[in-house]
C-alpha cells in the first residue's frame, strides 16, 4: 500500500510542479491544488499506513496496543485541507479579477510591476503597449 501511495505522491508533486511552470495561470491554480494534495497525502503516508487498528485504549491499559493508526497526521491533514480550500478559493477569485484587469492569462505578459511607467503615460496605455 505504501509503495502505491508513494508513487501517487511522486506523480502528484511532479504534475503540480509541471503545471506551475506553465505560462497560463489557470494551469498554475491547478498546479497549486495538486501540490497541496500531494503534501496532504505525504503526511498521511510518511507517518505509516495502519489499517483497521484504531487508537483506542482498552480498559485498564494506559496506551493502545501496538501497532495502531496515529490520529495526529490525520488531524494535521484535516486542518491543511480546510486551510488549502480557503486559500485556493481566494486564489481562483484573485486570478479571475486579474484576468478581467489585464485581459490575458499569459504570465509572461504580466510585467507592469517590473518596470516603472514612463512619466506622463497613463497606466492603461503603457500596459497595452507592453501586453
Amino acid at each position, binding site marked *: 500500500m505504501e509503495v502505491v501511495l508513494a508513487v501517487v505522491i511522486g506523480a502528484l508533486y511532479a504534475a503540480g510542479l509541471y503545471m506551475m511552470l506553465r505560462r497560463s495561470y489557470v494551469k498554475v491554480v491547478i498546479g497549486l491544488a495538486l501540490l497541496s494534495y500531494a*503534501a496532504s497525502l505525504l503526511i498521511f503516508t510518511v507517518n*505509516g499506513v495502519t489499517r483497521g487498528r484504531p487508537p483506542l485504549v482498552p480498559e485498564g491499559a494506559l496506551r493502545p496496543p501496538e501497532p495502531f493508526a496515529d490520529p495526529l497526521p490525520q488531524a494535521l491533514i484535516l486542518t491543511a485541507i480546510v486551510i488549502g480550500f480557503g*486559500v485556493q478559493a481566494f486564489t481562483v477569485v484573485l486570478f479571475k479579477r486579474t484576468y478581467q484587469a489585464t485581459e490575458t492569462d499569459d504570465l509572461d505578459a504580466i510585467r507592469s510591476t517590473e518596470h516603472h511607467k514612463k512619466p506622463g503615460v497613463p497606466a492603461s496605455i503603457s500596459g497595452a503597449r507592453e501586453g
Partner: protein
Amino acid sequence: MNLLLVLPILIPFLTAVTALLAWHNRLLQRRINVAGASLHFAVALGLLASVSRDGIQVTQIGNWPAPFGITLVADLFSAIMVTMTGLMGLTVAVYSLGTIDARRESFGYYALLHTLLMGVSGAFLTGDMFNLYVWFEVMLIASFVLMALGGAKEQLEGALKYVTINLVSSALFLTSVGVLYSVTGTLNMADLARRVSSGTIDPGLTTVLAMMFLVTFGIKAALFPLFFWLPASYHTPPIAITALFSGLLTKVGVYALVRVFTLIFVHDVAFTHSLLMVIAGLTMVTGVLGAVAQMEMRRLLSFHIISQIGYLLMGLALFTELALAGTIFFMVHVIIAKSALFLVSGLVRRVAGSYHLKELGGLYRSNTGLATLFFVPAMALAGIPPLSGFWAKLTLVRAGLEIEDYAIVAVSLAVSILTLFSMTKIWAEVFWKDRSESSDPPKPLSPFQRHSLLIPAVWLAALTVLIGVGAEPILDLAMDAAAQLHDPSAYIRAVLGGGAV
C-alpha cells in the same frame, strides 16, 4: 493559564471581529482600529516587561501538558518581536487613517489589518511547528487580501506573484512538517530540540529537514536566491500596507529561521550555519546592488529590505551570543528605520505627487521638515552614529571579528557603504536637485490628515534616534534574549517542565 500570552492574539482578533460588525459605519471602524491597536501595543509591552522580569512564560492551551497540546511560549526574543508587532500595528493604524481611501476602508481594510497582526503575533508566540504553519496561513491570507484590496491592475499583478510563491512555500512547509513528525514523532519545538539533541535521530535526515525548513522560511524571508517575488509585489499596494509588510512579514520568516536554527537544528553547525553565512553574504550584496539600480523610491526601498535581511541572517550564521544579540538589535532597528522610510516616501508622494526619483526634486528648499524626517531614518539604515543602525552593525561586526570571520565582516561593511550611497541618491534626487518641471500642486491635506501622516513618521524617526542615543538598555535586553537563544535548555525546561533536560 497566563493571560498575557493569549491577549496579543486575542485582542487583534476581537478588534477584527468588531470592525467587521461595524461594517456599515466607517467612522466607528476607524475608532475601533486605533483602540484595538493601542491595546495590542500596551499588552505587548506588558508581556515584554513580564518576560524580562520573570523569565520565559509558558501557557499550555486547553491545559494539555506539553508535548501533547499546543504550547504558547514567550522567551525574550518572542516578547521583543511581539512588542515590535504592537508598535508597527499602532503606527500603521494611525498612518492608515490619513492615507487609506474610503473605498478600501469600507471593504474591510481595518479588519484585515488586525487579522494580519493576529497572525504575526501568533507566529511569534507559538511553540509548536504545525501551529506555526497555521499562524503563517492566517497572516498570509490577510496579507493576500490587503495586497489585492482596491483592485488596481498593478496591485492584482503584484498579488498574483506574491500569492503564488507563498502558496508554493506553504506546500513545502506542510511537507516539511509532515516529514518532521514522521522522523521525530513530535511537533512541539522544545520536544523537537530535546529529541534531535539526544542523538537517536539520523543526523543526515535532520540535515535534510533543516534544508527543507531553510527553503520554506527562506522564501518568506526573501533570502538569496528566493527573493524575486518581493521587489515585484511589495511596492504595489498603498504605502501604509507596504510599510507594514516591510516591517513585519519578512521578519516573521527571519524569526522562524532564528528559532529553528538556534533551538532545533544545531546538530551540525559546521554545515548548516556555514551555508547560512554564504546565503547571508549573497543576500546582502544582491539586495543592495538591486537597490542601487532602482529609480523608484518604493522599489529601491524594497530591495533594501532584502539587503537588511542579509544582516539579520549574518548574526544567526555567526552563531555566538554576541552575534545573536546583534541580530535581535538589528531586527528592532530595521523594523523601525525601514518602515519610517516607507512612511516618509508616502509623505513625499503626498507632497510632490510621485515616487519616481526623476520626477522629484527641490523638496529640501520647499519642505525642510520632510527632508529632515527622511534624513534621520536613512542615515540610521546606513549605520551612521549615533543612530540605531550604527550600534546594530557595530555589534554584528564585533561578533564577526571575535570569531575571525573576516570575509562576512568585509562584505557587511562594503554593503553598508553601498546602502549609504543609495540613500544619498534618494537625498540628492528628491531633496537636493532643482525640480526640472513644475507639476500640478498637490491636493491640500486637511489638518487631521496632516497629523495622522506626520505623527507616525516623526515617532518612528524619533525612535531611531532614541535607540541610538540610549543603546545600552536595549543592547542589554538583546544580550539577555540572545543568551536564552544560545542556550535553549531554559526554554526546553520551561515548556516541558522540570526534569526534561
